[in-house]
């Protein structure tokens, strides 16, 4: 293990310890179930916004966006835009009413609004499913990060982060988690801002690149270990030293690659001379022109479709993410929930400038990632590649700490909400059971992360978004704004839409999806499944008008009327004062 690896590891351990310490300090304050689950709803706007942002900025945001920008260029920019726009939709249609519903979780909301046990059970299972699907890339990212930093096998990172998160959730509960999350937002921001500024400075002040060939090119002789089988696109003839299996033939020596696709098997080492153009994996933009132009790469000619479907999933999926929704219950009232969301938008917007910048810079400094396809590691490797000596080591350690903060915060938020619904709905309701539920909720994704093959984090995460958009988004939006929604409509709609989305996601994860536009829609199903869910919910509800709850007017009143009229739930502690 290199010195840099050790330093980074120390930084990571420090983050983990601080997380646990802050988490356990909060336990003293947490006395009741309410304390545990919703922090007694006394968290301030800015703290809550930082906590929401901290929880939301996952591995996909911290590592994945830079990776996707490195790979796809402009098209990757839709991810951060979509991630942020999700909060706009949340603000417009859900935030305040959801808070006023006084429910803790989506199943609670479903019950408040439609009073159906069956519906509650269905939503509970979707919460668990989405939570686990979202946990998967977090844990895998932890494995990747640890591998990159220390060359440890991936399972070490998966298990380590999984255990830290489970412990933190088990002993903390949300009040302490709020502080943990807020702390981690600022940590993550720092961990990207510092390297972004430093590397940008190096780039601008460093040797001029006038006349240099456009990236990606190897600036120095580079050898690349390919750990998973890849297909490389070679843009221009290149001399390459090969040890391993290429295009189906074993080779040990120099080879000359003609432009076109080349198959490289796992375990092969490629050596490129300085100045050689970088061959890139098949799903990346091969040259500068296509990289910096929109609507290239993804989707094989269906990039418009892919882009819209992706953005729709991100836009509407955010409001269905269990760990995000749970955060809104800690606002003192609906008005605070709105203001918190605005602050969140600002915080996210500020944050997302950084990974984009880092992704673009990494094209100059770590182009070899395009050969291996592990572009998600770009942020982690960029500092030491751009900065020589101890400066690089220090900055890299900071980035590593931030990355682990990302895994920890998102994972603990997800696990918290998963364990929350598990303990309240699937297990008898006692505090002790929450701990058991946390263990159950933590073990399943750890096992899954060890077994599943790794896709780009941005892709996996967007699958979770698509599933959330196809189930909870229609439930929440119709439940909040349409009197006619019935429990039957909600159940059928969620099963149909959620089922379709799950099938699409599953086929993509299993790698059995066909090509063409069908494949695009299977990888990004939201464009079909979200309207489908809305449609089914409305149609079925229309056909069962007798099932509209009799107190619907009163419920809607509670969701929309300002708290100061005294119509909300009695537990609300603070009232807006002005």
């Amino acid at each position, binding site marked *: 293990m290199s010195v840099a690896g050790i330093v980074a590891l120390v930084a990571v351990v420090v983050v983990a310890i601080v997380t646990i310490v802050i988490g356990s300090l909060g336990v003293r304050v947490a006395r009741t179930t309410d304390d545990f689950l919703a922090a007694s709803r006394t968290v301030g706007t800015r703290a809550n916004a930082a906590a929401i942002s901290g929880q939301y900025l996952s591995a996909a945001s911290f590592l994945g966006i830079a990776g996707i920008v490195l790979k796809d260029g402009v098209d990757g920019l839709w991810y951060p835009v979509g991630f942020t726009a999700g909060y706009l*939709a949340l603000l417009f249609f859900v935030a305040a009413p959801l808070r006023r519903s006084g429910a803790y979780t989506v199943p609670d909301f479903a019950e408040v609004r439609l009073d159906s046990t069956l519906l509650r059970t269905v939503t509970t299972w979707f919460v668990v499913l989405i939570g686990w699907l979202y946990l998967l890339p977090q844990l895998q990212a932890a494995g990747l990060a640890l591998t990159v930093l220390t060359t440890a096998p991936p399972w070490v990172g998966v298990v380590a982060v999984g255990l830290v998160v489970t412990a933190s959730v088990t002993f903390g509960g949300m009040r302490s988690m709020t502080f943990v999350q807020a702390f981690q937002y600022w940590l993550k921001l720092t961990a990207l801002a510092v390297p972004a500024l430093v590397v940008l400075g190096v780039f601008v002040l460093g040797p001029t690149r006038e006349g240099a060939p456009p990236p990606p090119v190897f600036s120095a002789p580079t050898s690349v270990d390919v750990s998973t089988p890849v297909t490389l696109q070679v843009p221009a003839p290149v001399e390459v030293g090969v040890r391993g299996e290429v295009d189906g033939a074993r080779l040990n020596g120099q080879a000359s690659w003609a432009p076109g696709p080349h198959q490289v098997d796992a375990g092969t080492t490629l050596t490129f001379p300085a100045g050689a153009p970088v061959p890139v994996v098949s799903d990346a933009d091969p040259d500068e022109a296509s990289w910096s132009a*929109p609507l290239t790469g993804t989707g094989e000619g269906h990039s418009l479709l892919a882009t819209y479907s992706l953005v729709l999933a991100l836009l509407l999926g955010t409001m269905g993410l269990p760990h995000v929704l749970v955060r809104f219950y800690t606002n003192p009232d609906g008005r605070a929930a709105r203001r918190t969301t*605005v602050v969140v*938008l600002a915080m996210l*917007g500020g944050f997302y400038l950084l990974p984009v910048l880092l992704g673009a810079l990494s094209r100059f400094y770590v182009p070899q990632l395009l050969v291996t396809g592990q572009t998600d590691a770009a942020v982690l490797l960029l500092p030491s590649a751009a900065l020589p000596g101890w400066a690089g080591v220090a900055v890299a350690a900071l980035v590593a700490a931030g990355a682990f903060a990302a895994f920890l915060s998102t994972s603990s938020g997800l696990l918290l909400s998963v364990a929350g619904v598990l303990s309240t709905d699937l297990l008898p309701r006692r505090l002790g059971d929450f701990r058991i539920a946390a263990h159950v909720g933590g073990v399943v994704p750890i096992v899954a992360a060890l077994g599943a093959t790794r896709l780009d984090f941005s892709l996996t995460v967007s699958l979770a978004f698509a599933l959330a958009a196809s189930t909870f988004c229609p439930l929440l939006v119709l439940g909040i704004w349409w009197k006619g929604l019935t429990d039957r409509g909600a159940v059928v709609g969620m099963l149909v839409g959620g089922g379709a989305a799950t099938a699409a996601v599953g086929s993509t994860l299993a790698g059995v999806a066909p090509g063409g536009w069908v494949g695009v829609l299977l990888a990004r199903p939201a464009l079909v499944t979200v309207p489908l869910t809305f449609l089914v919910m409305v149609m079925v509800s229309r056909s069962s008008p007798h099932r509209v709850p009799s107190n619907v*007017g009163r419920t809607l*009143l509670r969701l*929309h009327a300002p708290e100061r009229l005294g*119509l909300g739930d009695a537990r609300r502690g603070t009232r807006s004062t002005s």
Partner: protein
Amino acid sequence: MTAPGGPVRVTGPVPTAAGADGTDGSTPDAPDTPGTTPGPAPGTAESPDHAEALRPVPEPPAGAEPPADGDGDAWTDGAGLGPDTGTLRRSRPSRSPRPGVPTPPSPMNAATGPTPGLATEALAADPPRRPVPPTFPSPGQPPPGVARRQGRHAKPERAGASLHTPPSGYRPRHAAPDAETEQFAATPVTGPGGSGPMPLASPTPAGEADGSDTYAPLSSPALHTAPGLVIPPQPDVGEHSDRVRVVLAERRVPTRAVRTVAEIEQQTETGELLLRNLLRAQLALGLRLGLVAVFVLGALPVLFLVLPRAGTVEIAGVTLPWLVLGFLPYPFMLALAWLYTRTAERNELDFADNVED
């Protein structure tokens, strides 16, 4: 809850207390409760007192007031004590000190009500507001305890008290400040008569600052204006009057709203309309701004597709798509969010105002 007025937070406790006490006629603990829960009853009751207190200082026992037996006493006491109007505010607390005397809580008094006439009027005037009046058993019949008590303090006035129908003299007093006050006075109805007498109780308790702890914090100049009772600060009564009025003020807004709220909750036509308007306004706002966002952001891919040239334009070394997608969406979305929050809050404010009027 009991009556339409039930939801009002303050009133809650009163009815029960009134009923219970009314029956047995004596509640030993009444004294300690003054500042806290029973608040509503005493508070309301007070209003009249103050109104009276404030102006008529000079005309104290003069008697205009039938229920006044107590009042009379109080007044005299107060006069004697000078600044210590505190007594007035609280019939209850004052009572407590008297050891031997059974002391029914103020509401009870009201119930037994030396002033049936008032009670009825009050009810008529504002039924929904106050569940209390309806609850009491028999306004006309003062329980033994009460009678005794009153007798003690206000022997002279007793006659007046027994009359129970001093509408002419009595009413105006409470109503004096403005129309609103009348309503308030009405609430205490239960108490007007009763309240009057109660304060009489004892100067001592007044000093004890019965309710002061509870009410004092509330007394801020701003609040005073709120209630119907706007009373110019009076030299001697100053602080005390403050407290009392504040209580009223606080109560009043919610009380008003409650009626409409009840309407809405019961889904009457008005309520439905109000709610539907709010829903529509908020949804329309969300959709409008949402469409703006969707069209602006959603047009970008198409724009890039139709105008590939746009992708090559450079501004300050950054090509247009990078600028448009990498930076501009965030301030744009933030502006929309801010606009939404502002407008949505205003919609809610309008709704609340409608409800409260």
